[in-house]
């Protein structure tokens, strides 16, 4: 291959038409005029940058490798190592498990091990001589109505994340919530769920959750807490009477949309004039809020209608995978580009982004930019779209101006049917520019709708937190109540929240876990999980859901409502009473916010009977009719999971005249610190709150496929410039360990604004050059057994003035290495001898119209007669699945849904590094094109349920067999663990329990498991079953009614969670079924179809809709 590169170099020695190389050399060659010097970094820096990036010796290698994206001969590739063709990668191709994975690496020697094994083998037969242990049945004494043992019940509730709700339907087995599904009636869900809500059942049963109310670490009772808090609150009243008022109560919460909680807080604030309420979320949406205020002079909430948009431009917004409406947006977006039943129209997505995200990966055009460049880009675009930005147009380099022209034209051609959306990490001015563009393009009212804010009290969270810290520092705070959250860990480093908080005499912390913040608070109250709570919350469009509990608090947790009630003289008031009473009063007021009653409920302490008497006037006055009306309203709201007619009404907002006068002037890189840093919430553990959730920790992050860690993510060129990773054939790739499957990452020291943190480097194709992305949420010190001491804390270098990105980052190689467990190179489907296989099919809309199969030329699947065995016949059902690669956005909710439904264990970082993760479903990421900005394709792969399954014929004990309906069945009780099946599986979808991964002993986790699926033990092979338990249930239900299973009656867990409906399951014998129709599409193809294994799961080729004017960029 080296010769090939040389040859190419000889043909075009200075060819520089590759995108990235032009970007690098552009500043030198272009005459830098005055205007462009405003927008472009000083040329000296760029000189420096290009000299860093272009070491003379290797520049030709680098360039030629970039020039030819297929230098390893691959069109599609899964990792840089594959593209570069490293030795370790070749090794991985040959082995499913690394060389040493099956070795006995224990202090016990081989001889002793063989002796022990021999003895246990000889004695193993004896275990068969035991009879089954006696089991007991304890029926109810008085069986509750409608609670039938063995029959799951489903309840509607909602999960708040950063304050905003996603509507859910929760499956409950005899009172134990076991599985989360989306609520079809909820606007933010439409039946889909994200990974966070899927994993929240594990959060509920987490044995590391805080279980006791503590004071200075000692377990105390609730009355003792009240005894301490009451006098402090009473003292506050006295303080409030003083002139000038000094000191006070402070409440710190996350963003609150809950009408009831906000009402309670406002009541408390009205009672105590010196009290203040602060809201802060480390991954909050301050920029979006402030952007609306900048543009319109008032807070407004923006709702996008992707179902009406033909052209979408995202300015650093990951709207398909992040944020409170991502599920809805992903559904609407995907529906507009589904090429089925003859549809030939697609929407088009442009993404300009400063890191790699799911949204950028599915974009038709993606432009990686430094974060500081996005504002300039947005301004230039706004100018070209006809917005008066008040500033002269900017010059961009040729490639970007081509982009600007093309996007500008496309947007103008789709007036009223386009969307410009700004990312939550971009400063307010970018949001204001997006608002102005949407106004100019006539999108407002059609695709962009403004409403009142969904937050009960919208504030700039960072400013709010800063104010609190200042107050605490100056001793003005007597009593601090922290309602959820972990500010000691996640507050920006420059604020020194912990130091300021220590100056508060009385600190109370309510949270699910005893964490870094609880350590520094005298009082810690265990919080009730949302599945244990009564509350309410709004969705992105304002729709209110009542949060109802599925189970009584496992650890006597309290809700925020109950903690606040203690401060409101209603110490024993349950959250049910609080929430219901609020809605009763609101119902009586005709849906309007009920007035705040100051000081009304004065109840003597310790009289639990009293709370009922607190609203005598409200309850006794209305007529019987009104109360039955409320009862109906309440029951309907609980049943539906949404309170009818609470979505906020569209409102008209006008751009302020001076909105564009503000410039944020993002910092530019300097010669000393040529790098920019991007902070993002972690794709799987968010801001750190899910750090102790094993399902989320082990979920491979959508693009890097990293588990159990975060990393400093850089582009290959930046890594090359810093001499990070391994250099092979002119590529900077991650260094694979030669024995395992982990990445041996170089450690770097990130120095940013005087603070330092050491981080392992992960090289990510498509990442913008000169930028380091770090994900928040790791580096927890007190998170629990799962989450503590994983990764590094990006909060340690995050500052309040630049919480999302900034320049001035210095990077230094420390020389150390760190092992990262990433699954990107696990379960590879390629084989070296064969060359590139037909794994992913993709093409542009134009190509699709001309050549609808999008398959490689001259390749076809073997015919019917190609098998020695007779074909199976299926009389009734033949189950099958179709996965539309066009729709998949790689969010990985399906993976967690599968884990939850099928009792899949967590294996831990060390085992993941050995390729032993147990996920039945994986989402493979494939890249196409050069490493600087490749096209990205996601491909969910689970057991393909082959017709001619290679696994079935090699099992010596018939533990894996073919069912009469075409399922490839795995019978655990027969499996003896030879692993022949896994060895013979071309898709590498079988998972073996090398060790006892399942936790059989933790009591709370026993409650979590799906009773319809066997819990597997050590030494057993397992794999996707197409959720056979759901198939059997539907079949039994249908047979009892003497009918066929209806299409859509069986929905596997992955398909049910999918926000884009990319996964469709059904009976392929029924030609009218959705799955059969999808399989009839011409883009339908079998993965590795040439093997003639005839998989039942087929894929629909991914189609992208690039702008012809931009070509394939």
């Amino acid at each position: 291959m080296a010769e090939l590169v040389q040859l190419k170099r000889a043909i075009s020695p200075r060819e520089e038409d590759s995108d990235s190389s032009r970007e690098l050399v552009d500043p030198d060659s272009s005459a830098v005029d005055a205007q462009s010097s405003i927008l472009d970094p000083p040329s000296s820096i760029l000189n420096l940058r290009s000299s860093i990036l272009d070491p003379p010796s290797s520049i030709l290698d680098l360039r030629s490798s970039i020039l030819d994206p297929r230098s390893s001969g691959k069109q599609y590739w899964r990792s840089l190592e594959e593209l570069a063709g490293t030795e370790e990668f070749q090794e991985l191709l040959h082995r499913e498990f690394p060389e040493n994975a099956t070795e006995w690496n224990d202090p016990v020697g081989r001889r002793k091990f063989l002796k022990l094994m021999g003895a246990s083998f000889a004695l193993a037969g004896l275990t068969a001589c035991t009879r089954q242990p006696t089991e007991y049945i304890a029926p109810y004494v008085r069986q509750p109505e409608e609670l039938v043992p063995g029959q799951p019940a489903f309840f509607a509730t909602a999960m708040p994340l950063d304050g905003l709700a996603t509507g859910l339907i929760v499956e409950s087995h005899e009172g134990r919530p076991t599985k989360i599904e989306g609520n079809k009636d909820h606007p933010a869900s439409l039946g889909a769920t994200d990974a966070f809500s899927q994993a929240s059942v594990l959060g509920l049963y987490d044995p590391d959750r805080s279980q006791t109310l503590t004071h200075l670490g000692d377990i105390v009772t609730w009355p003792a807490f009240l005894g301490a808090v009451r006098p402090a609150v009473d003292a506050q009243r006295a303080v409030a009477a003083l002139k000038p008022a000094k000191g006070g109560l402070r409440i710190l919460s996350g963003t609150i949309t809950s009408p009831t909680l906000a009402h309670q807080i406002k009541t408390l604030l009205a009672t105590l004039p010196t009290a203040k309420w602060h809201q802060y979320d480390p991954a909050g949406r301050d920029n979006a809020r402030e952007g609306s205020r900048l543009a319109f002079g008032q807070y407004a909430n923006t709702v996008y209608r992707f179902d009406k948009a033909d052209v979408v431009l995202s300015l650093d917004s990951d709207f398909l995978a992040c944020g409170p409406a991502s599920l809805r947006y992903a559904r609407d977006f995907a529906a507009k580009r589904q090429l089925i039943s003859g549809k030939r129209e697609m929407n088009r997505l442009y993404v300009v982004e400063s890191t790699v995200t799911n949204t950028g990966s599915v974009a038709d055009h993606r432009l990686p930019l430094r974060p500081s460049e996005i504002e300039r880009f947005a301004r230039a675009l706004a100018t070209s779209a006809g917005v008066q930005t008040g500033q002269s147009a900017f010059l961009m380099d040729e490639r970007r101006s081509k982009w600007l022209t093309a996007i500008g034209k496309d947007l103008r051609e789709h007036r009223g049917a386009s969307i410009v959306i700004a990312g939550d990490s971009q400063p307010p001015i970018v949001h204001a520019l997006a608002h102005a563009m949407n106004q100019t393009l006539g999108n407002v009212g059609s695709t962009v709708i403004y409403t009142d804010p969904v937050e009960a009290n919208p504030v700039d969270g960072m400013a709010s937190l800063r104010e609190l810290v200042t107050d605490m520092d100056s001793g003005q705070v007597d009593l601090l109540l922290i309602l959820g959250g972990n500010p000691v860990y996640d507050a920006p480093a420059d604020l020194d929240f912990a130091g300021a908080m220590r100056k508060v005499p009385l600190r109370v912390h309510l949270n699910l876990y005893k964490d870094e913040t609880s350590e520094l608070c005298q009082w810690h109250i265990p919080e009730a999980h949302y599945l244990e709570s009564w509350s309410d919350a709004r969705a992105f469009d304002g729709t209110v859901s009542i949060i109802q509990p599925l189970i009584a608090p496992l650890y006597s947790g309290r809700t925020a409502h109950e903690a606040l009630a203690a401060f409101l003289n209603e110490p024993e008031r349950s959250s049910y009473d609080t929430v219901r009473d609020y809605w009763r009063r609101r119902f009586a007021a005709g849906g309007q916010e009920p007035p705040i009653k100051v000081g009304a409920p004065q109840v003597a302490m310790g009289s639990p009977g009293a709370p009922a008497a607190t609203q005598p006037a409200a309850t006794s006055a209305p007529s019987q009719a009104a109360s039955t009306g409320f009862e109906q309203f309440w029951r309907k709201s609980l049943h539906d999971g949404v309170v009818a007619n609470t979505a906020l009404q569209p409102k008209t907002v006008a751009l302020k005249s001076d909105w564009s006068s503000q410039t944020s002037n993002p910092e530019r890189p300097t010669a000393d610190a040529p790098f920019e840093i991007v902070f993002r919430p972690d794709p799987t553990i968010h801001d750190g709150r899910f750090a102790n959730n094993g399902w989320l920790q082990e979920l491979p992050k959508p693009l890097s496929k990293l588990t159990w860690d975060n990393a400093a993510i850089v582009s290959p060129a930046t890594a090359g410039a810093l001499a990070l990773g391994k250099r092979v054939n002119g590529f900077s790739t991650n260094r694979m360990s030669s024995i395992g499957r982990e990445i041996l990452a170089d450690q770097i020291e990130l120095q940013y604004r005087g603070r330092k943190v050491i981080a392992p480097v992960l090289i990510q194709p498509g990442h913008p050059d000169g930028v380091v992305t770090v994900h928040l949420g790791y580096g927890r010190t007190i998170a629990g057994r799962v989450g503590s001491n994983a990764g590094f804390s990006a909060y340690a270098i995050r500052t309040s003035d630049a919480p999302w990105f900034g320049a001035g980052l210095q990077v230094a190689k420390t020389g150390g290495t760190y092992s990262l467990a990433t699954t990107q190179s696990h379960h590879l489907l390629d084989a070296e001898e064969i060359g590139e296989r037909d794994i992913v099919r993709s093409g542009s809309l134009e190509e699709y119209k001309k050549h609808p199969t999008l398959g490689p030329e001259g390749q076809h699947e073997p015919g019917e007669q190609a098998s020695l065995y007779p074909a199976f016949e299926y009389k009734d059902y033949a189950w099958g699945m179709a996965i539309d690669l066009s729709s998949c956005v790689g969010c990985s909710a399906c993976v967690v849904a599968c884990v939850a439904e099928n009792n899949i264990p967590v294996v831990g970082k060390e085992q993941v590094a050995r390729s032993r993760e147990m996920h039945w479903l994986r989402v493979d990421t494939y890249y196409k094109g050069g490493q600087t900005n490749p096209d990205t394709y996601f491909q969910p792969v689970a057991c393909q349920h082959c017709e001619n399954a290679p696994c079935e014929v090699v099992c010596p004990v018939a533990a894996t067999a073919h069912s009469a309906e075409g399922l490839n069945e795995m019978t655990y009780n027969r499996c003896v663990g030879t692993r022949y099946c896994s060895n013979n599986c071309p898709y590498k979808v079988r998972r073996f329990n090398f060790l006892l991964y399942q936790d059989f002993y933790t009591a709370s986790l026993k409650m979590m498991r799906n009773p319809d699926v066997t819990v597997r033990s050590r030494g057993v092979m397992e794999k996707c079953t197409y959720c056979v338990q759901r198939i059997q249930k539907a079949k039994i239900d249908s047979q009892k009614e003497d009918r066929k299973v209806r299409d859509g009656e069986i929905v596997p867990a992955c398909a049910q969670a999918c926000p884009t409906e990319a996964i469709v399951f059904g009976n392929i014998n029924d030609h009218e079924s959705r799955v059969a129709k999808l399989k009839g599409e011409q883009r339908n193809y079998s993965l590795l179809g040439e093997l003639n294994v005839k998989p039942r799961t087929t894929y629909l080729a991914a189609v992208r809709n690039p702008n012809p004017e931009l070509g394939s960029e």
Partner: protein
Amino acid sequence: MGQIFNRSTNFISKVTIFGAFFFIGIIIWLLLEFNRSSYYTQAYFPREQPVQFSHKHHVGDDGVDCRYCHTTVEKLAFAGIPPTKTCMNCHSQIWRDSPYLEPVRESWRTGKPIKWTRVHDLPDFTYFNHSIHVNKGVGCSTCHGRVDLMPLTYQVASLNMEWCLECHRNPEQFIRPKKEVFTMDWPPQQWDPSPDKQWHQDVEGPRLSKEYNIQSTGVLTSCSTCHR
């Protein structure tokens, strides 16, 4: 050096070699028979229960329908064990002071459930569904035997997979009209007064199997039908 073994020992060695095959065969056979024995399967072993509950009395003598207590047998996988409330429906009126019923009354007073010993206990990797069997004409007595004659309940079937497959391979040999599912005495001594309407399983079975749309043997014997 003389021979240690006499020629006649050859016979012993031959017997030993051939005997070994028989011996191993016998051992395997014994193991299999042990596996089927009621010592191992616990068939025909009445279980001790906290209350001396007699199905013979309730079903046989009093004629209480199965579904009065096992309420979900037609709807769910689990037939249902009655809550204490069901016992007290009658026993708050009759046998109010019987010492045998003290555990029931105690449960009712204290709210603590009666802890029954499970009689039919399938392994956890086997998923049996009562409702589909009952709805397809598999009678209670086909698997549970003459419960109406059992003072203390015991299982009459081995519950081995072999036993399950006996029916899953040939359901027509066991099914009966749906309306007779809860009949204990089946097949009837006298199906119909007229002699030409005697119950003939080999005639009625296939007919019912068709009528009830019983799944093909291939489906019924697929592993995932019972193992998930």
